[in-house]
């Protein structure tokens, strides 16, 4: 069969591979090359070596964005996963109305980042003005927590669904065995349920990690980096480097930042996958 299939290879592969080359491979390779160049369009690129990288690493704004993104990612990953797992535990206890709750908690996920950002900007600004605090455009602390609340609101439902699927797959006889052996509910949770849902934890950690690091739409719509680039995350910083100012020196710098950002995201997610995968148990 393999032989027959091989003759038809082009029909099966070409459409996807050509589009993939246009949409990903070529821009990716070109992007890596351009990060060593000075340019304003792809065609006027002039090779300048590693200068862009030196400037990127010396850019205090970029470094601030990096730490801001890390601080945001750590808190939001913890909050989202803990709350989502807690909700999943509650919603697998056969309470009344479980389906309704599940429907409600998942809903924000379907709304796009730009729309979510504006909804929360209006809401948070209202709270701030009633409390007599400076509004989001002048208040970086509120911007930070606003982003976290927004991210929780959007992502908890999604992760909850994954945890519910994981919990429902834990075999009943395992739970019964734990009960007969006299395990308390707390022990059952830590010694039986958690190890059994480790694959779900892996995937949820992966998704929240990459989503947090790559966050762009929500950042743009909620704070747009205000005040004074203090709430600007890495993706938005790169976007602004590219498009906020005209001039030959910026595009190369932006592309070098993008390459660094890409390496960072790929490395962190590989590391995370390895770390949580090693804790998974075979059924």
């Amino acid at each position, binding site marked *: 069969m393999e032989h027959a299939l091989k003759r038809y290879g082009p029909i099966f592969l070409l459409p996807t591979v050509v589009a993939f080359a246009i949409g990903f491979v070529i821009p990716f390779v070109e992007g890596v090359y351009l990060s060593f160049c000075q340019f304003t369009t792809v065609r006027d690129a002039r090779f300048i070596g590693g200068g862009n990288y030196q400037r990127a690493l010396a850019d205090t704004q970029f470094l601030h964005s990096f730490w801001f993104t890390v601080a945001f990612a750590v808190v939001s990953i913890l909050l989202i996963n803990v709350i989502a797992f807690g909700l999943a535990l509650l919603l697998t206890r056969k309470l009344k109305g479980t389906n309704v*709750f599940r429907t409600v908690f998942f809903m924000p996920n379907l709304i796009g980042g730009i729309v979510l950002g504006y909804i929360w900007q209006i809401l948070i600004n209202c709270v701030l003005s009633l409390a007599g605090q400076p509004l989001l455009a002048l208040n970086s602390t509120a911007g930070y927590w606003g982003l976290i609340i927004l991210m929780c609101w959007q992502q908890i439902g999604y992760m909850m669904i994954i945890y519910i699927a994981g919990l429902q797959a834990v075999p009943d006889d395992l739970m019964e065995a734990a009960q007969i052996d006299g395990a308390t509910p707390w022990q059952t949770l830590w010694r039986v349920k958690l190890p059994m849902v480790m694959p779900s934890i892996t995937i949820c950690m992966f998704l929240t990690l990459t989503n947090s690091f790559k966050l762009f739409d929500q950042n743009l719509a909620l704070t747009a980096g205000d005040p004074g680039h203090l709430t600007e995350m890495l993706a938005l910083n790169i976007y602004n480097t590219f498009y906020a100012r005209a001039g030959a020196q910026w595009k190369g710098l932006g592309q070098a930042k993008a390459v660094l950002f890409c390496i960072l995201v790929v490395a962190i997610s590989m590391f995370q996958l390895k770390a949580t995968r090693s804790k998974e148990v075979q059924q």
Partner: protein
Amino acid sequence: MAKRRKAGSVILTAVLSILSLVWLYPIFMILMNSLKTERAITTSGAFRLPAAATFAGLENYVSAIVSQGFLKSLGYSLFITISSVALILVCCSMCAWYITRVKGRLSRGLYFLFVLSMVVPFQMVMFTLSQTADLLKLNTPWNICVIYLGFGAGLAVFMFCGFVRSVPVEVEEASMIDGCNPIQTFFLIVLPMLKPTLVSVGILEAMWVWNDYLLPTLVLDIKNYMTIPMLIQHFRGSFGRVEMGPMMACIMLTIIPIVIVYLLGQKYIIKGVAAGAVKG
């Protein structure tokens, strides 16, 4: 013991109910404000219900539809989403079947690249991608689906491969012996078996394309074509004083179809998300 457990579950249900209301409040707040007159929409008054004097009826909605070009954007968004998802489903399932069934360096290399493309942030390719799209004239709503196929292929191929691996190859071999060529085998035998995965992939990709902001902004000509996320961002960016009423109405008009689709296809959407995660 049983009584205590029952009391506990009543309290839990109550807590979850309150939490659900909190969850829904932001959307309710936008609904409230979209019904107010322009002057009544203030920063600190966002939580107030519209009163008789500040109630604007459907004025904002009419303005959003008539003068802000909402319907045009809705049309573009719908067309781009449907064409991209359809293209992704057909092309990527074919590609995934091939690279799972035909072993070799080409298949392994492609699979690795597809997986890599899922993790790479969009900022890495945004500039070069938009220039490539301009060069190849892939910058209209009618053919932007090619770009979406390229950038969405990673997730789709990955998920399809996971499923194809669990399908017994004997069924396909039998159909080939009975005289089907590979194309017939794929569309008559494999594709019907892939149906649950098609639904999952379709839902995940549709959620992404429909809500995507940055890619269409960079690729499409903003003066001629605006998708819904672009329209909402445009409200903020370039109108000088922001017209809050029509903007709130626009947000509501964006949310309503999503909620309707969600309530109708809830079972599939939730299953799709869970299945996508298991395959991952």
